[in-house]
């Protein structure tokens, strides 16, 4: 018998001694009606920058202003779905491809924006490579208000309703961080040093 066989046999033999297990209860909190305000509040507390714009088409100019303010080159790798926005009008060069270690900026959309904790859900795919939100030092996320959901449970329901599981679902809640040195939180560990959320209200 293989290791697999022996392990499962042992587990099955001991299973009979189990009491009936309780059913799972959801712990998802009930949030108030204003998800957008809660989301933005949480995001700011986590050390990300937030800019609210009217529509998605206003995003490129907000991004350009932010990059200039931080002396970051206006050069980014981005998700395919965002190519249609007016980047050229704001003098931001974007390319839809896999991210490289030397890309200064990565621009993504989101599968969902979770208000409970100020978290972005990013699902990998041919047009949404996982590295775009990971390799560059600056991560910009364009968040339409339609992406807002209350909890992670809601986000799973939405994602599973759309497609089979992607290879990687990443829940991102701010710039990378570590507290390994003297328990002092330092932003900018191995992932992005800064995160900008551009929230489009309409």
């Amino acid at each position, binding site marked *: 018998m293989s290791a697999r066989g*022996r392990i499962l046999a042992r587990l099955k033999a001991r299973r009979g001694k189990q009491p009936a297990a309780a059913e799972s209860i959801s712990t998802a909190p009930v949030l108030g009606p204003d998800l957008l305000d809660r989301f933005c509040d949480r995001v700011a507390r986590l050390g990300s920058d937030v800019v609210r714009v009217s529509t998605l088409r206003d995003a490129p100019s907000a991004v350009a202003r932010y990059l200039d303010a931080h002396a970051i080159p206006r050069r980014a790798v981005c998700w395919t779905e965002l190519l249609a926005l007016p980047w050229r009008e704001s003098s931001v060069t974007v390319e839809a491809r896999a991210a490289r270690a030397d890309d200064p900026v990565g621009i993504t959309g989101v599968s969902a924006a979770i208000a409970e904790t100020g978290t972005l859900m990013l699902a990998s*795919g041919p047009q949404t490579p996982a590295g775009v939100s990971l390799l560059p030092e600056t991560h910009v996320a364009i968040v339409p208000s339609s992406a807002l959901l209350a909890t992670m449970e809601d986000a799973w329901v939405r994602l599973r309703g759309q497609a089979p599981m992607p290879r990687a679902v990443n829940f991102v809640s701010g710039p990378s961080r570590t507290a*390994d040195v003297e328990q002092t939180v330092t932003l900018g560990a191995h992932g992005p040093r800064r995160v900008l959320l551009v929230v489009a209200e309409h």
Partner: protein
Amino acid sequence: MQVTSDEFKPKAHEALGNARLQHALGHLQTHFVANRARAFREIDFEAVRDAGAAIRERALADLPRYLEQFEQAAVAAGAEVHWAETADEANRIIADLARRHAVRKIVKSKSMVTEECALNEALERAGLDVVETDLGEYILQLAQEPPSHIIAPVLHKNKEEIARLFAEKHRRPRQEGIAELVAEAREMLRPQFVAADMGVTGANFLIAETGSVMLVTNEGNGRLCTTLPRVHVALAGIEKVVPTLADAATLARLLPRSATGQSISNYISVLTGTRRAGDLDGPEHMHIVLLDNGRSHLLGTPMQPILRCIRCGACMNHCPVYQNVGGHAYGWVYPGPMGAVLTPLYVGLEHAVDLPNASTFCGACVEVCPVKIPLTDLMRELRAQQYERHLRSRAERYALVLWAWLARHPRAYAWAAALLAGVLRWLGGRARTLPGARQWTAGRTLPRSEGRTFRALYRRRRAA
């Protein structure tokens, strides 16, 4: 990691005298304990941990079914699932995978189960280059030391020690600031991620519903290890399985708050299988190694609840013993209250005989455990087993035999108590060390008694 769990007493003694360590351990109270309390004010801790305990028990109650469901779903997504009965087997499987995929460089995300198996040493013996990428583990790798805490592995080191270590090993001018040290580590490690052939991680949870590996992290190194290299290997204990994605969402409320006081950790990655057709990044090969190493033997026994453990570290953060001696004294991967239970169970009670006794049974661990493991009950059960197997000193055994006899003979008990009350009236109230009980009396003043036992006084007052 070498097992030195039989050296608890001398190591604890050494730790108490180490001023630098004592200063570092102060962070447990000011950071971990305080931050956890603040984070749990946001939610109903008792209600959420009831749900957490139920989820873990539900998985354990039907473990073979959930493991098979997990395997099926993972394989359908392109992963290969391997089963290892022992640590050696797991190491062999992973070394073979490295050979099969022509791997030379491996980047690792922090994983306690890989420490349990001493995986790094096995891979290095096989000629592989293994780089730890979690900042704390990277520091430990440079210093060639074991971790002292399951969440904050270099809790025992201060900034100056780390600065000195970096200057020496990186051969660069010494940095003083914490931000600069972190930036230097980022710079040194980034090229390693890019050059690596294989990423090795653990798994905070295995999700049966979808065959996914869930990683709860903050630094981004876990994501880099599982995005850039062409092979990903995840090693996980069989007890890590949870039934559904919704269950994982509940545990995501408990784990970060219990561990670091965060409402949510910076990154939660749910990884399912290999690169899909059309994907531009991600591993081409994914291997999940399911490890038994003693876990299946605990199922169906009174010790089963320890398998619920989600490795948050809250128990050790709140433990007065751990707070004073730190993690190295426990002699293995798992310190504090959960280590006092797990280490004897995995390495043998005879090799860790002082660990279940390294507790005052204050119950702080039980109060904070997010999955309600009855840790003090489990330690008591191990103490009972020690007694059955004659593992403790003869003096201790005779003391317990005497105590048991007195407890069954009330008149003799009353006589002995009256004698003791008289002695304490004469001897007590002054600081003195007693021969034969030097450890106990060196730091304590003998209580003074008024000369009579409670029962005698009670009898007298009732008669009056």
